[in-house]
């Protein structure tokens, strides 16, 4: 409810900035014009096709990245030797921008979904991985000792101790990765021209269709908001035990 106020504030601001002449409305049109452009777009099948394509690349990429990030993160985080051995490599690979990999992606997959996926997975994977590493390191030593004293196997320790401890970190990681994945999905479409919202934005941009461009950007943003809402709702259910959520269940 309150969140709507925040978004409404943003809409008003964008309406006012050009109207008051603070920016040229040819480059940042007021909300109403953007909304009109969006309205025209909403009725076309093309638009929904683009949204679907983007979400498809996003979802598949995110799932792969999260799964890989969690598995690798827990394995590396739980085994000190692995952690020591991979630390430098991880730090080396992490800052390589996905955009620098575009030629490689095109080389391997052309403009297929594969290209988008490669970029999305590469970027989102690190987000999850780093969070999981920090999360696993956050295990309460007493909790861990309790598990060890009862001779929990490796799997049981991961499942019942490491995982729940890391979970809040993982959630943050997934939320970060979700938007990074969206960003990369759109960027990949933008630059490589794989079908999707990003391509539509690129076309609007090169055609000088400014209101439409903003409308599409807004759609991207709204997708982000929706994804976050879903993540938060999920978090409230799974982390009801956690310090950060406990206080929010009305006492």
């Amino acid at each position, binding site marked *: 409810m309150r969140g709507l106020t925040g978004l409404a504030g943003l809409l008003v601001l964008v309406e006012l900035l050009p109207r008051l002449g603070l920016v040229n409305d040819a480059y940042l049109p007021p909300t109403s014009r953007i909304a009109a452009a969006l309205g025209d777009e909403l009725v076309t099948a093309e638009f929904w096709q683009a949204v679907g394509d983007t979400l498809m690349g996003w979802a598949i990429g995110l799932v792969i990245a999260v799964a890989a990030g969690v598995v690798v993160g827990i394995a590396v985080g739980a085994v000190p030797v692995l952690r020591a051995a991979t630390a430098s490599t991880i730090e080396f690979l992490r800052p390589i921008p996905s955009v620098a990999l575009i030629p490689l992606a095109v080389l391997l997959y052309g403009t297929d979904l594969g290209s988008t996926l490669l970029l999305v997975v590469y970027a989102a994977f690190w987000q999850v991985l780093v969070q999981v590493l920090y999360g696993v390191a956050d295990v309460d030593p007493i909790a861990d000792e309790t598990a060890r004293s009862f*001779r929990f196997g490796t799997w049981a320790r991961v499942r019942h101790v490491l995982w729940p401890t890391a979970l809040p970190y993982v959630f943050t990681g997934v939320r970060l990765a979700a938007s990074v994945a969206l960003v990369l999905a759109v960027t990949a479409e933008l630059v490589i021209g794989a079908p999707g919202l990003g391509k539509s934005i690129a076309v609007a941009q090169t055609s000088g269709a400014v209101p439409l461009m903003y409308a599409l950007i807004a759609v991207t943003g709204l997708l982000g908001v929706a994804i976050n809402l879903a993540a938060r709702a999920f978090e409230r259910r799974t982390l009801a*035990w956690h310090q950060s959520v406990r206080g929010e269940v009305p006492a």
Partner: protein
Amino acid sequence: MLEVSSLKKVYRSGAREVEALRDLTFTVDSGELVCLVGPSGCGKTTLLRCIAGLLEPTGGQVRLDGREVSGPPPGLAMVFQEYGRSLFPWMSVRDNVELPLKQKKITRDRRKTLVEQALDAVGLAGTESAYPWQLSGGMQQRVAIARAVAYEPSTLLMDEPFAAVDAQTRADLEDLVRALWQRLEVTVLFITHDIDEAVYLGQRVVMLSSSPTVVQDEITVDLPSTRDQLHTRADPRFTELRTHVYEQIQAAKRGLQLGGAGASS
């Protein structure tokens, strides 16, 4: 049989170096119930961690049934002094108690019975579905005890397990531990600050000196093996023993070694 020989533990972190245990030697027979007392900070928790194989000693060794302990031995249950942190906040009370049983591959029905019996015995029937952090301190501690009891261990290590419960509950839990010990012939090592409790519970009481820690004294509690709260505590021999332990602990705090009292083993 549990043998602790020349155990030494030094904590090192940066510049700070603490000699928690200097040279500890004592044994606990299989199926024996031994209480351990000693001044605060003398290394009791450290000792228990070493015995459980959770901490590597700096010197000496711990052997359980002849084998050297390097990791937690099978059939061991431990109640931690930090009971609050040893419960998993993401699980209900029931799940906390049940989880080790699952690891032990006990059938579902049997698990259910064990969990219920254990929670009932510690007076927590009805809180099964609460999370540990919704319970009071004493209740949390009792969940930790229930978890150890339900596990039906062959070795039971308890680190001040009744510190947070009221007098009446404490008495009940003392009897619970003795009953469990007699029923399952568990080897029990029990740390407490309550001298009466140590004498009431134990077959033997081992007293540690203050840091640098060695075994200050050891007494065999020659009270009848069926004990009850009213009569045992009224026994003059009980008073004699507790006075002896009390004196030793005072001496330990002062860093002295008192001459062997009549009760000394």
